[in-house]
């Protein structure tokens, strides 16, 4: 009886679906005309929250990514994803907000009157901006007021100190209740809206040596829908994994090649960190990384793929490959291991602290330091303020983006 109770209760908490609200047929977004890229750049900035502080805190960052207007705030990692544009007398945006650390969500609407910056924005003129709007909770209609006023525009890409907001598992974990599954092309596309400039993805070998993107060692109901196969990934061929496995939100398990193709041609990601779970995969991974880094260079794309080294076994497999010097490495072990491998990047665990001395040593050698995987909001803020890292891996790229842009705009 106790076993039944335990099992039943645990099932209540394994649900990774979050019912995101939608304006449905009440949306006006389709009526809007898209803004120009210059107008979008003029909207990017830090805004003071005059009303709506309960939801958004004191300041938010607004940033356009392609057709999505993203808003990043601090309380519980709040963020909003909106679409919109010019709607005759106003600039109008609609979407949903969500707290990254919890399951709270709701609808959100914004407008900018012509007289409060809208007219100038349409004509690509820098101007003070006041955004007014409403938000609601869960599926209820927005009714609580928000007012934002522009404090400072974001620096240009050239002016910004280079810092990598790198999203874990392609953008976040399935357990973060995002609308797409981890380690998929859809997740990487979503990660751009969340402010990520780079991603970390996990690779595993199938039985017939296809390099697949999947985190856990086994097919399980945590990451996949219930299906006919369970157990170690390495027991199944590529065809079996593609045919018989559906990830949590229904996607097929992608190959590494598919992920890299997608990133190279369909995103503006600049950094890809491959977390190889199998030492044997180095035989296939290294040539692929060489191929894609070369392709990116030829296309004029600012994108680099690096091979991650989480343990000594993977490190040895990398060193034993004849072409290892032609692919950049990210070593998670000690500074002397970084030197042994001649890795371009040192990737320490955040729980070791800011390690100022070690980071200085790494920088003096012309290398970069990127720490993982930092999710705690309080520590994240301290590490951004006090650390000298060149990037951070996180499951909450919206929150890291917020802290980063606020620091850059000081």
């Amino acid at each position, binding site marked *: 009886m106790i076993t039944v109770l335990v099992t039943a*209760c645990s099932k209540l*908490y394994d649900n990774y679906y979050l019912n995101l609200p939608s304006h449905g047929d009440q949306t006006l977004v389709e009526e809007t005309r898209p803004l120009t890229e210059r107008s979008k750049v003029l909207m990017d900035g830090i805004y003071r929250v005059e009303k709506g502080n309960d939801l958004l805190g004191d300041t938010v960052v607004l940033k356009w990514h392609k057709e999505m207007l993203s808003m990043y705030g601090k309380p519980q990692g709040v963020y909003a994803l909106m679409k919109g544009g010019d709607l005759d007398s106003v600039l109008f945006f609609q979407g949903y907000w969500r707290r990254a650390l919890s399951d709270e969500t709701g609808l959100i609407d914004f407008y900018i009157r012509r007289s409060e910056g809208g007219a100038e924005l349409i004509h690509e003129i820098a101007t003070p901006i006041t955004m007014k709007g409403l938000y609601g909770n869960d599926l209820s209609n927005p009714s609580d007021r928000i007012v934002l006023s522009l404090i400072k525009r974001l620096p240009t890409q050239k002016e910004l100190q280079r810092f990598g907001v790198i999203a874990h598992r392609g953008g976040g974990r399935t*357990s973060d209740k995002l609308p797409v599954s981890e380690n998929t092309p859809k997740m990487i596309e979503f990660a751009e809206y969340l402010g990520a400039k780079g991603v970390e993805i996990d690779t595993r070998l199938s039985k017939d040596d296809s390099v697949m993107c999947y985190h856990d060692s086994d097919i399980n109901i945590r990451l996949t829908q219930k299906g006919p196969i369970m157990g170690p990934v390495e027991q199944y061929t590529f065809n079996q994994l593609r045919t018989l496995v559906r990830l949590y939100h229904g996607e097929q398990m992608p190959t590494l090649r598919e992920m890299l193709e997608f990133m190279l041609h369909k995103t503006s990601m600049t950094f890809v960190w491959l977390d190889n779970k199998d030492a044997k995969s180095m035989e296939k991974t290294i040539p692929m990384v060489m191929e894609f880094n070369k392709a990116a260079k030829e296309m004029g794309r600012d994108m680099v793929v690096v091979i991650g080294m989480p343990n000594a076994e993977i490190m040895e497999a990398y060193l034993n490959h004849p072409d290892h010097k032609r692919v950049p490495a990210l070593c998670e072990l000690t500074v002397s291991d970084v030197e042994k491998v001649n890795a371009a990047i040192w990737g320490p665990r955040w*729980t070791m*602290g800011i390690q100022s001395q070690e980071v200085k040593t790494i920088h003096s050698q012309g290398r970069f330091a990127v720490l993982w995987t930092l999710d705690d909001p309080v*520590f994240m803020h*301290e590490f951004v303020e006090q650390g000298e890292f060149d990037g951070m891996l996180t499951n909450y790229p919206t929150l890291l983006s917020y802290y980063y842009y606020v620091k850059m705009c000081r």
Partner: protein
Amino acid sequence: MKKLLTTLLVVLFAFSLVAEEKKKEFDIVERSIMMPKEYRFKEMNWMFGFGFAKVPFDWVEMALQAPLFYLHGNLGLPYGFVANLDVQTLFVSNQFRLGLKWNKQFGRFSAGVGYDQAFMFGRMNFLGFANRVTGWTAYPNVSAGFVLSKNIAFTLNAEFPVITHMRRTAGEIETSTDRNAFVGPTVSLFMEQRLYKNHILILGVKNSFTKYFFPAWMAFSTFNRYYYVPELFCGFKL
């Protein structure tokens, strides 16, 4: 031979009389440590045990069962009050609890209400960690007991932990929060049964619906949602 047999019979008969007397003397209420019973002034008892908790996969990304070692003692006070001390340790995670309860018995049933104040601390300086944590937690609690027979009793306990202060370090970075955070209730069921002589076996299951589980502090979980953390408990009162 006759003398030896007679001696043996007398010894056996005397032993059976003593055993019968011991069996008659045993009373689970008298010997219980989990039940919210009324203690005599300065009456003391203690028990030791261990528990296995199943930490949520989302927090640690692997199947992890954490064994916790327990030491628990009660001291009877006047007017139905009892003081209790509770020590839980996983070596990298530790908690000390001091509390006060007021208990009342109603025949086979009993009930109690109490408040515990806990200090927890943890330290981990290996395997990629350079972290410490200290914190204070309040545990208001209620319990109910039921005596099934002379040898068996059940106790149902509910507690509602509130973390009032927490300090954490990562290397040279230190953070602290002072916020009364209710992390979720724990409901436990214990069975106490006579093992042999006056010794008691305690079996229990603790069900926490919680956002935070102190033995797993090093997971630094950020999920602001309730998780089910079951724990099986086995203890002995000798």
